[in-house]
């Protein structure tokens, strides 16, 4: 199966780029969906991005200190036939949860929202 590449998501407030502060995963790591993936910094604030899927990290496209434009590749996961990747890889195109999750699973938390309100 094809490897799955995720771009830097739109972080809101009209920001067009972000700088990698620290990767919280390494190439080759098996990560769970929604686990902390990377810290990035915009001109406004620091943001931690959670993993959009479970699977094995194939490639990190920017080192700490490098700037990535919104829409440019951020991370690539190994394709669905790799160990751990099958469970969460979907048919639609999931995105990293910056501001707009493109895929929600009712049984799993995508964004943390209060139980009441």
């Amino acid at each position: 199966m094809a490897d799955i590449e995720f771009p830097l998501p739109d972080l809101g407030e009209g920001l067009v780029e972000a700088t990698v502060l620290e990767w919280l995963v390494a190439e080759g790591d098996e990560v769970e969906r929604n686990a902390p993936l990377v810290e990035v910094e915009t001109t406004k604030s620091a943001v931690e991005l959670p993993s959009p899927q479970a699977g094995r990290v194939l490639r990190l496209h920017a080192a700490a200190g490098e700037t990535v434009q919104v829409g440019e590749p951020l991370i690539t996961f190994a394709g669905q036939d790799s160990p751990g990747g099958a469970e969460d890889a979907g048919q639609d195109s999931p995105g990293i949860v910056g501001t707009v999750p493109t895929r929600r699973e009712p049984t799993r938390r995508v964004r943390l929202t209060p139980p009441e309100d």
Partner: protein
Amino acid sequence: MRTAGRDGVELAWQRTGDGPPVLLVHGFGSDAAANWDRTGWVRAIADAGRCALAVDLRGHGASGKPLDPAAYALELLVADLVAVLDAAGTEVVDVLTYSMGGLVGLELARRHPARVRRVVVAGLGAREAFAGIGPGEARALVEQGGEPADPVAREVVAMSSAPGNDPSALAACVEGLAGTRPDSEVPAPVLVVAGSRDAVADSAAELGAALGAQFVLVPDRDHRNAVSARLFKRSALEFLAAE
């Protein structure tokens, strides 16, 4: 959730997760979403088996924004936190703070020692609040904008002009809290955390010493980007997990 403070100001807050509660108190010009949610803190706290109570301080986020500096007296901000704890049905809490939120969290521990177990203070130095901004200067500062040389003044200008913020309310907040000192004794264990490049909190080690606190320096981080640091999260969650 919305809860009224002692003087009627509306306070917005959210509860996430189950377990022993942690009250999250954000910094100047920020709010619960920017300081704690987007930085991964709420997720980390929930993953640690804790409940996050994240409040928007008055003048910030979705809470009421009074324009009178007297509405930002430290005592009233502390009363706001008590009102949120009462509304949440929470008797005893750990408190996690950033920057100006530390002034409020530490004073909560002083005034209500039975309700506060442990306090984490990050991005806060030992000097009085908003040192470098003279009496009555705050309003002119946020109206003029620009890039003042003083790091505290620069931060106030930058945060005041951020989207969604009310510069007049934030100027009132600066005036109401100016001169507050963070460094008097606190009857709870305290952890102090700061980025090694944090110009706003460059006296954080002194604050730690004054409070008899543990101190963690986060390498290569400044006031803006120390918030999300893994070392900050790990240190704070370990400290708050202690009996």
